[in-house]
């Protein structure tokens, strides 16, 4: 059973008299435990795809099933619940709240889960998630006291904390240097291998996309290629070394 099943997804934006076809009928299935990299130049529609996959936006037409549940026509609040329970987001800009500790940042999704969760349980789960990303000892640090890589790891812990079926990472390394980028990618790979979490990564860097088990190339709102990939751990290092060297 696929975690994600897209059938002929179209997204059309109307800008004045112009219709912009951001997605022109995308169909694809993503199985549990896959690490899918979606690559494409800017304007290719990968951001729109990520918004639809993340239930932040609804497709104009087509069907999107997440965990076998059709989510293409749910109301705003129902989508909010889906995002809360099933999807973990990792953003390019980390999006941590300032003047807030790492643990509190990780707790945010739990604030909105239903039924309501007690403060102690929230804190325990946040601590566990932080330990998974190796930041158990930084839980009480303010978010601005952490390095970029650490901040992104806090964001990953936040994505994890509600045990989602899917982690959506939108250019997670865009604001990081190469070494930290590799570090963050290792964390994501690790999550897939150890916890079996499905990961969808959106990037425009081929080196980063190469960490996935499957690479989907998007161009002009349609899938250009969809290939299995042997994720390389070793390859990234030399690339990094090259860039650093």
């Amino acid at each position: 059973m696929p975690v994600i099943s897209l059938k002929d997804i179209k997204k059309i934006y109307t800008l004045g008299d112009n219709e912009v076809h951001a997605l022109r009928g995308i169909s694809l299935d993503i199985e549990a435990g896959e690490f899918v990299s979606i690559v494409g130049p800017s304007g290719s529609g990968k951001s729109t795809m990520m918004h639809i996959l993340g239930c932040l936006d609804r497709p104009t037409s087509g069907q999107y099933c997440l965990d076998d549940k059709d989510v293409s026509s749910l109301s705003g609040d129902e989508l909010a619940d889906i995002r809360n329970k099933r999807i973990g987001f990792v953003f390019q800009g980390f999006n941590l709240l300032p003047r807030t500790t790492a643990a509190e940042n990780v707790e945010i999704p739990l604030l909105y889960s239903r039924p309501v969760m007690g403060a102690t349980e929230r804190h325990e789960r946040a601590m566990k998630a932080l330990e998974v990303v190796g930041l158990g000892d930084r839980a009480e640090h303010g978010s601005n006291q952490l390095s970029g890589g650490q901040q992104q790891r806090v964001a990953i812990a936040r994505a994890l904390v509600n045990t989602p079926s899917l982690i959506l990472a939108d250019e997670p390394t865009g604001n990081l240097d190469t070494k930290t980028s590799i570090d963050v990618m290792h964390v994501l790979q690790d999550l897939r291998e150890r916890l079996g979490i499905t990961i969808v990564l959106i990037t425009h860097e081929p080196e980063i996309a190469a960490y996935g088990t499957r690479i989907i190339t998007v161009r002009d709102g349609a899938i250009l290629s969809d290939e299995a990939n042997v994720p390389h751990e070793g390859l990234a290092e030399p690339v990094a070394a090259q860039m650093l060297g």
Partner: protein
Amino acid sequence: MGTNLRMAMRALTQNKLQAVLTLLGMSVGVAMVVIVSGLGRGAQMRIESQIEAAGPTRITIKPGNLTPPGMSSKGQDTSFGGEAEGAVSIDPYSGKSDATLNEAVQRARARMETKTPTKFRNPATPLGAAEIAMLTSEIDDVTAVAGSVEGNASVDSDAGLRMRVVRVHGFAPAWPEMDGWKALEGEIPDAASIAAGTPEIVIGRSVSEKLWPGEGSPIGKHIPVGGTDLTVVGVIDAPEKTNAIIPTVYAPLDLAQTLLERDSFDQITVRTASVAVTSKAAEEITKKLRELHQLPDDTFDDFRVESQSISALPSMGTNPGLVRAVHSNTAELERANWEEMAKSLRQAGRTFTLLLAGAAAVSLAVGGVGVMNIMLVSVAARTREIGLRMALGARTNDVMIQFLVEAITLATLGGLIGLALGWVGLLVTEYGFHWATAVSPWMLLLAFALAAATGIVFGIAPARRAARLDPVVALKSE
């Protein structure tokens, strides 16, 4: 809720200066509400007490009903009388038709033509213990009853005093308080010393001068009457009778009745609980007294029931005879006057309060606009945070409540400061400017509730704006 509150506090501390300025605006608004309602209430209470003081709460009952004929008043003779009060004199021979005549004249003529059933007068029944008992136990809203007796007594000739006669005024224990006596010197005999039976009296200042000119304090001096040595124990500021050739001495009721060899009262004075019930009580007294005196229906009262203002007229310097002549009309006039005054005073008080309340409402609204402003700024500055929270599963209501709680927190914090400021403001106006103020817990609660309501009213628009953001757009914002 606790989490929401903590989030709100954190958000507010991130924008300290703005938050403090908003708090200031809000607290000034609430302080205004507190001060205004305090002043308004104070003014109204002062007005009420003025009305109370001006209105009659005292009823006097006197035996006998020998008011001159021609006066129209309840229970009194209306079978005589010529032209009515308020009539404009018109010469009946001037040729003017009836239609042009003054309406009052026509009424008077009509009255002269109708036969009023003849009523009979009763001999006066003395007012005694039975009447006191009835007034004390059977009339509602009566707070004090005091009988009094007055009469002349001969001073024993061997006393060496310049006066041979004194007017003895017997007062009931309740009387000094009812009449507002103050002891200028010595003391006024209280219930305990009256019970002890020593012949103690009090006198007015001028009487002291009359009896013992140039001798200073009269305390301890004696006036022998009928073999009893009356000891002066106090000097009071009682109103002196204008025609007091004979010096008046005030003796406890029992003593006075013994001296005057009487067992009835010249007058019984009753105090009612409030102005509002005075006329009702007077009517009830009349009814009950008629029952007590077993007066047949076709007879006049054998007593007079008068309210305070009427009986106060003579001491206001008017000729008592004249006062009696205009008595019945004055009674109505007094009452109407008092009601008019009460009405216009209350009206003025209400207008004053409304005016102030308007000013307070405006300043509260200004405070509210301040809250709205900071909230709108906050929503704009935190659009990305809102987008993030939505992406992480916050529903529309969650976002809405977060910002609403923030606005209410701001408003109620301002409200608390405002309560303190307003209280200080009231103290300043009370002790600094000597304005009447009154604070009630309900009022403070209301002011606080108003602050919270302001937070809701002015916080709802920014909160809705936040809640309606599109997460995709919000996440992209800088």
